[in-house]
Structures are given as C-alpha cells and as structure tokens.
C-alpha cells in the first residue's frame, strides 16, 4: 500500500461526497425522528421521514425540469437503466420488439439489451463515427415500424462526448417511439431538461454528482404516462414501480447533491474545463498522443488520451501516483481493452495504451500540474527504453 495517496483523477468512476451532502446525510443518521419508515404514515416518525423523501424528490425533479411525481427512486443508474429498458420493452412488447441503441452505451444498457435479445427482441447497435458521435440521421435510418424504444446515453463515461439527445428526442416524438437516456454522467455537468429534450425515460445516479453510492432515480414521463413492468415486486412503494423501504438518508443525500450540482453547475463547468485544458496542453506536448472523442462536443471533465509507443499496463503502473482509469471502473478490473475505444475504430493495442483522466469539483491546479509532470516522465521513460521502430 502506497503511503501518500495518489492524485484522484477518476471522478467519472465515482465522486467523493460533497461535505454539504455528507452533512445532510449525517443529520439523518443522527436524528432518531427521521429514522422511521417513510411508508409508516400512521405515526410521526414515518411522516417526518416521508417529508424529507418528498423534499428530495422535488430537488431532483427540479434539476431536470420534471415534476416530482415523475421521479422513481432506485439503487443507482444500473437499476434505472434496467428498469427503463427491461421494464418498458417487456411492458410494450405488443408495440413491437425492435430497439435502437449504440455500441458505446454503458454496460448497464448493453447487458440489459443482451437480455432482451435473449427474450426475443432485436436490437440495432449504432456505430458512432470515430469522434464518438451518433447522428440523428443514423437513428432515423435505423427506425423500423416495429421499433418501440431508442436508448442513447447523454454523456459517454469513457470519452465524455455529448450526444445530441434533443434532436433524437424530437425524432422519436414524431415517430411515436419511446426514448430512454442514460444521464448518469451528464447530471451536474450538462443541462438536462426532459421537456426540451423530449425524453420519456432518464436514468440518474447520485455517486457521480458528489452524492452517495447506492441511490439513483429513474425519470418516467407521466403525461402521456409511460407503462413499465417493475423489476422487483412487493410493498408497492413508488407507485408499485419500485418496491422496497425507501432509504431516507440516501435519498436526502441525492436531493442535496442534485440541488447543489444544478445551482453551481455553470461555475463548476468553467473551472473544471479550464483545468482539463491545462492538462491537455501539458500532455499534448508529448509527441504521438491522441485525444479520443470529439474535441468540442464533450463534457468539461473527461480527457481520454491514447499514448502511442507506450504499453498500457506499464503506463498505468508507472503512474502509481495518479488515480486514473483505463476505461470504465467495472472494466478496469479486467484486462480487456475498452470496447468504447474499439467502437471508435482504435486497435486493441492503441485502446490498451489509453488512459481516462476525469476531473471534478475538488481538483486543483497544483494536482493538474503534478499530473502533467508524472505523465510526461512516465511516457518519456517508457518510450526511451523501447526498441526504436527505425532500429539498426
């Protein structure tokens, strides 16, 4: 175990709690009046907990311009994505069994779609251009008479590109097709307006927005109402769409996190983007480095770079003083090169030599400058010991 902790540049994997969020959660953990079951409306403990739950529902709804009644609490975006996709597809199977999505979606979308394929649905996985963007034309061309659902992520978790969800939303409206958007990575960084974007289902999670892990939400359009088959059944909480005792402290934490994220979004974005540009300015001084994903249409916080002539595992090992990721958190446990970079046309070998730097609310200029030094030294050292391609 390293003594000094590395510089945290893995905000896209998960964010530390904002102290204001921690404070709100700790109040719930310390205050016995708030520890009743929010479903126990028969007594004061339950009613007070319920009041906090509904306050948080309003906070999350406000952050995406939705009505509180359209927010369903879940355990995170994985559950939200599964509830949205499995729930809508199974419920509306009679409308048609075709679904349109993309190759660069998060595993929680891709694996849910695989399950639907096993259940007899057919899925078109759109291949983005090398910049990571899926165009509305691609979606239009993929729509069929039996298409019931389109699922497209707002901001990609590995390369940070932003999809034009609004245009796809208008298209889906015209065609009477449901649109699900995985917004786990955009909340707090890109404005989300479910009305303007014409979204029917939208997945959110707290732990990418300085809130707690293990709590998320699914936005579900209420007019016209979108029908869903629940993933789990029981007490009938959340209008029967998601049973299970509501975790007051978690929900309160998510509410505060989203309220802060929306209020401070613009200031955060300006600061974080400047830091990211400083990082890229430093790293791009190295020869043979390549930015992955569209340089303009991207979230402020993510920088995904391929380092040619440097082996990925050695690069990460040499950068022990930086907490960065070689892909999505779940993937980085494994050795396999990022399927997202592969979809952009990168070779296994280049994908393997790529790192995702993701910055956040607590990143400092000093950390960025230190990161530039580490990366430069590591890359130059590894290149210096490698065989020259113009050898002998």
């Amino acid at each position, binding site marked *: 175990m390293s003594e000094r902790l590395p510089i945290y540049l893995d905000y896209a994997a998960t964010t530390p709690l904002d102290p204001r969020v921690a404070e709100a959660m700790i109040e719930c953990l310390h205050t016995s009046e708030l520890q009743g079951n929010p479903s126990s409306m028969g007594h004061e403990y339950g009613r007070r907990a319920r009041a906090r739950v509904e306050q948080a529902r309003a906070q999350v709804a406000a952050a995406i311009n939705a009505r509180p009644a359209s927010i369903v609490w879940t355990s995170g975006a994985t559950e939200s994505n599964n509830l949205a996709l499995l729930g809508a597809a199974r419920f509306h199977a009679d409308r048609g069994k075709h679904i349109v999505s993309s190759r660069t979606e998060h595993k929680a979308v891709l694996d849910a779609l695989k399950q639907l394929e096993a259940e007899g649905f057919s899925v078109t996985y759109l291949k983005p251009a090398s910049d990571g963007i899926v165009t509305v034309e691609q979606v239009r061309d993929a729509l069929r008479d039996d298409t019931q659902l389109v699922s497209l992520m707002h901001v990609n978790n590995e390369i940070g590109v932003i999809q034009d969800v609004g245009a796809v939303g208008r298209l889906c409206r015209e065609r009477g097709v449901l649109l699900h958007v995985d917004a786990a990575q955009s909340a707090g960084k890109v404005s989300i307006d479910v009305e303007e974007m014409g979204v029917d289902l939208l997945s959110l999670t707290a732990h990418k927005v300085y809130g707690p892990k293990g709590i998320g939400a699914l936005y579900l359009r209420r007019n016209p109402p979108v029908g869903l088959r629940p993933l789990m059944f029981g007490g009938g909480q959340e209008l029967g769409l998601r049973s299970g005792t509501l975790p007051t402290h978690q929900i309160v934490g998510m509410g505060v996190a989203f309220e802060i994220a929306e209020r401070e979004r613009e200031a955060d974005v300006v600061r974080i983007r400047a830091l990211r540009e400083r990082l890229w300015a430093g790293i791009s001084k190295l020869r043979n480095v390549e930015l992955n994903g569209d340089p303009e249409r991207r979230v402020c916080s993510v920088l995904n770079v391929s380092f040619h002539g440097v082996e990925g595992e*050695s690069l990460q090992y040499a950068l022990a003083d930086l907490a960065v990721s070689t892909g999505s958190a779940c993937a980085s446990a494994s050795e396999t090169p990022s399927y997202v970079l592969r979809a952009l046309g990168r070779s296994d070998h280049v994908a393997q030599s790529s790192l995702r730097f993701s910055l956040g609310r607590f990143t400092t200029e000093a950390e960025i400058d230190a990161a530039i030094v580490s990366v430069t030294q590591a890359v130059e050292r590894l290149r210096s010991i490698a*065989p020259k391609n113009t050898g002998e």
Partner: protein
Amino acid sequence: MHYSPLVERHFATPCNVGQLASGSDVLTARAGSQDRGVEILLSARVEHDRIVALNHRVYGCPHSIAAASWLTERLTGATLQDLARWTWREAATALEVPPEKWGRLLVLEDAVRALEKNWRSRPSNHAETA
C-alpha cells in the same frame, strides 16, 4: 495485477538499457512487435566464447520490461551453451510471473533463440562448434 519485488525493482530501474554500437563482435536479435504487446531488442558483445555485454530495449507490460532487464544481468558472461539451455521458465520463476503473462515471456525466449542462432551463424564461430 500482482508484481513481485523483483519485478518492481527492474521496472523502476532497468539495467543494461540501450543498444550496443554494431560491430563484428556485436550480435543483435529482435522479437515480437508493439501490436503483439511485447517487443524486445537484444544486443550482445561476444569475446571468445562468452557474452561480455548484453543490452536490451523493450516495449511491454511491467513483467516483460522487468524480465528483459533481468535477462541481461542473468546472461552476461553466458556461453553459447548457457544461451541454448536458457528457457522462459527461469524468468517466470525468478520474477514470479503469473500464468496469464507467460505468453509474453515466450517472446523473450524468441529473442534469446534468435541471438543464439546469430551467434552460431558467425563465421568466427564455425571452428568452435565444429
């Protein structure tokens, strides 16, 4: 991924990095490629029947880098026979390389075999091996 102390040391401070200036007494051998994930270049100065200097360049994972560095220490002073006897398993054991990485050590062995072949094919060598 686990790295043994020896891997850590050789990765942090590899020895005999570089390429010897070519000359009649210098043998070189190359194996692997960046696309395959490992590439190794060995260059050895031979005097009489022994390797008196062995340098390397390497592209690869920490185990590959450490193994190449370790090898140059291990085979400095080696004879053609020592070279012929050497196998990747020695490196696997010494550096505690996990099985999923053994394939990369085979590339290192390829480089050693190539070096051996070049040595045997040296004119000055025929007499000795005859």
